[in-house]
């Protein structure tokens, strides 16, 4: 195969931070290559160097089709057929599918004819076998459809290398399959595809080679066939992870929360479950299976139509999340970016927000000392790596942000902690840290409901797992008694 892109001895320093140290990388025409590594390992910097956004430090060389590129600019990189699909997709939601795909055609200053716009878009879709309504607005599309638009746009621009940054982060399993299929289509047209991904299993299904970065250095390029997700995780973090299922709970403990025949029209139907002190109850199922809606009801945010919720054996009606908090229920939401944390506010303020009325001193003002003690306690307890409690949450990595979210809820002293997809967008290494914390909390007697669509996550970190499907509970599994594959099948069924 012909070599499309070669990077030699690429280093990049930003101020005092060495983002990349002497990295070599080559991409063959039409190969599927995975770039793996934890947050801050230098993946993004490397992509930006390839896209011409950042120049490499002196001493590094970039060759495209064997020609050395001195001073690669974004325009030149695009002209040579390098297309980056960023995680946010960079689409224009207020414009139609056709306009988005043919955005290049709208460059310059001249009269616009709609014919070519439609034609470009249609042929781009045909080339990779996608069909979407050209006149729909992108704001009306699902995330997966938007991704197709972004890929079509890349393909309309005669791409020879498409780099996808975290393409699977917000897709369901079926959508991921469709994306992988599309990748093969690009490959058939000898377009090289580079995946940058956290979700290792999916990437291994399709990649031919995997390059792993750690702390700005290349750990190596490996044949994907010889790679397992565990080995990849170890390479990325430099640590080894043991996966073993949880031992069954010992002595019977009293239930913290039980639910009988809970229904909410259109969301979930006839749900009965119970979670005990010290137990981690996993709930899995596809997006739209009703798992998040159920969690919101347990947290008092969506009123169920029928059924009973019992806290410590007594029936309760939760009118609001405030009442749920008073009953000792905490909920760490799926979407920490928009619901859970106030990103631009200091870490300390985020941790203290749920318990602010317990920190009131004289005159009803917040007692600074009490707040500081509380914040320091949880930062230590959860091992949150921060500069100062006064830094904005947005300065933290995904894993540490999630710990701040946890701290905020643990500060309320809950008896039941509901975690909804707690490791979305979190690195392998940081994920493991969160699992350890959750297990420790459970050992200390906290009841935990762990909701996730990542099967291994619930399988290895729960005492029991419930499978939800179309709003109903369709199965119950005990990981110490069954195989991961059995659970996987139950979800896929």
């Amino acid at each position, binding site marked *: 195969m012909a070599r499309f892109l070669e990077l030699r001895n690429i280093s990049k320093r930003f101020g005092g931070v060495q983002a990349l140290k002497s990295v070599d990388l080559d991409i063959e025409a039409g190969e599927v290559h995975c770039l793996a590594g934890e947050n801050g390992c230098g993946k993004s910097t490397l992509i930006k160097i390839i896209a011409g956004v950042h120049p490499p430090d002196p001493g590094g060389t970039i060759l495209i089709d064997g020609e050395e590129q001195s001073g690669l600019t974004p325009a030149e990189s695009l002209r040579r057929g390098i297309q980056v699909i960023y995680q946010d997709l960079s689409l224009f939601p207020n414009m139609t599918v056709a306009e988005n795909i043919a*955005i*290049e055609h*709208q460059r310059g200053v001249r009269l*616009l004819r709609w014919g070519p716009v439609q034609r470009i878009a249609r042929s781009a879709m045909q080339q990779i076998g996608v069909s979407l309504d050209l006149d729909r607005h992108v704001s009306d599309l699902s995330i997966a459809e938007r991704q197709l638009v972004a890929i079509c746009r890349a393909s309309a621009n005669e791409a020879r290398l498409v780099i996808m940054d975290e393409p699977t982060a917000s897709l369901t399993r079926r959508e991921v399959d469709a994306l992988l299929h599309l990748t093969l289509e690009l490959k058939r047209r000898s377009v090289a595809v580079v995946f940058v991904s956290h979700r290792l299993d999916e990437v291994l299904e399709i990649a031919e080679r995997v390059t792993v970065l750690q702390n700005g250095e290349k750990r190596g390029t490996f044949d994907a066939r010889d790679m397992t997700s565990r080995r990849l995780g170890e390479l990325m973090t430099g640590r080894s992870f043991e996966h073993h299922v949880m031992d069954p709970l010992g002595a019977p403990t009293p239930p913290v929360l039980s639910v009988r025949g809970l229904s909410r029209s259109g969301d979930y139907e006839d749900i009965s479950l119970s979670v005990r002190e010290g137990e981690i109850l996993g709930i899995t199922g596809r997006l739209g299976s009703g798992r998040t809606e159920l969690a919101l009801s347990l947290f008092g945010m969506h009123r169920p139509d029928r059924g009973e919720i019992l806290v410590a054996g007594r029936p309760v009606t939760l009118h609001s999340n405030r009442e749920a908090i008073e009953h000792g229920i905490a909920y760490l939401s799926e979407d920490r970016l928009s619901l859970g944390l106030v990103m631009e506010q200091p870490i300390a303020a985020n941790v203290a927000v749920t318990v602010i009325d317990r920190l009131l001193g004289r005159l009803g003002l917040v007692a600074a000392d009490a707040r500081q003690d509380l914040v320091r306690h949880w930062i230590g307890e959860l091992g949150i790596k921060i500069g100062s409690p006064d830094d904005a949450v947005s300065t933290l990595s995904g894993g540490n942000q999630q710990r701040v979210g946890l701290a905020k809820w643990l500060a309320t002293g809950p008896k039941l902690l509901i975690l909804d997809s707690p490791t979305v967008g979190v690195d392998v290494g940081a994920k493991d840290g969160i699992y350890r914390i959750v297990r420790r909390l459970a050992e200390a007697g906290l009841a935990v409901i762990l909701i996730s669509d990542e099967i291994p996550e619930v399988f290895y970190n729960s005492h029991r797992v419930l499978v939800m499907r179309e709003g109903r509970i369709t199965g119950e599994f005990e990981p110490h008694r069954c195989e991961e594959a059995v659970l996987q099948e139950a979800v896929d069924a």
Partner: protein
Amino acid sequence: MRSGLRAFARTHEARLLAVTVLLFVFLSFATRNFFSIQNGLDLLTSYAFPGMLAAGLVVVIVAGGLDISFTAVASIAQFLAVSAIGRYDLGWAGLCGIAIGSGLLLGLLNAILVTWLRIASIIVTIAMLNVYYGLLMFLSHGNSINTLPGWYIDGLSWVIGADAHGNPYILNMQILGLGLSFLLTWLLLNRTTTGRQLRALGGNPEAAKRVGFSTLRLNMVAYGYMGFTAGLASIVEAQVAGSVVPNMLVGRELDVLAAVVLGGASLLGGIGSVSGTFIGLALLAMVHNGLILLGVSSFWIDCVTGFVFLTAVATIAWERRRQRAAIRRTIVAAA
């Protein structure tokens, strides 16, 4: 085509049009003087000034910005141009050149400040409104210009017909200016690559930057065009008013903004249409005019206008929420 029609029926413009038509029919029967060509021409003439400004403002809003300073820009343009023709014999070309040129320059200044300062455009242009207005008061000492050259007072007009009593229907420069502004805006937004780039910038500024569209250049087009229409509008306004009063125009910003927002433009940027803006303007004009013809106290008129505006905006917001929920449902169903 059928599906195109059905798609149109679901748009905000269609609903707005339906309300406008209903109001039109109602007023035609409820009042004696509403349904006449003469009243129509009068309405177009008196709404030419806010209408032309609305045609400029919708471009800025589509590009993701907001301009509040245009009434002060128009005041300066009109003051400079009319002062100049009072002293020198410049004719129409000089009048238009000075008014449009000064409007354009002030618009470009707005664009540069908005782009470079990276402050919300509403804040920048509110500040500039005060700067321009203060400057105008300083230059004019607050004095009006009450004598305009005869050729300007006569204006440009064409008789295009007459009613049964022989009263002529007159197509004047106000109506022409209004038509011209809307035509230009439509061409700019829908028939040029620049127009699509403006829409792209309003929809996702970060992505527009990545594609390589220059924010500064596009802002200069949008705010510059706003200044251009403000200059043009100021000429037709002074002609119909017969004088230039420095503090006459400032304060009418919100009427213009109301017409644009009523027309479905989103203050978040990227969304807004020429047809919607025109219908929004027509609806506001008809509410005003209708209430006057119905003999409603003029104190109530502002109240009712505010209420119409609120209803329309609430409907738009409700509709967008409903659509988003519908999309979410289909996504969930597909998954």
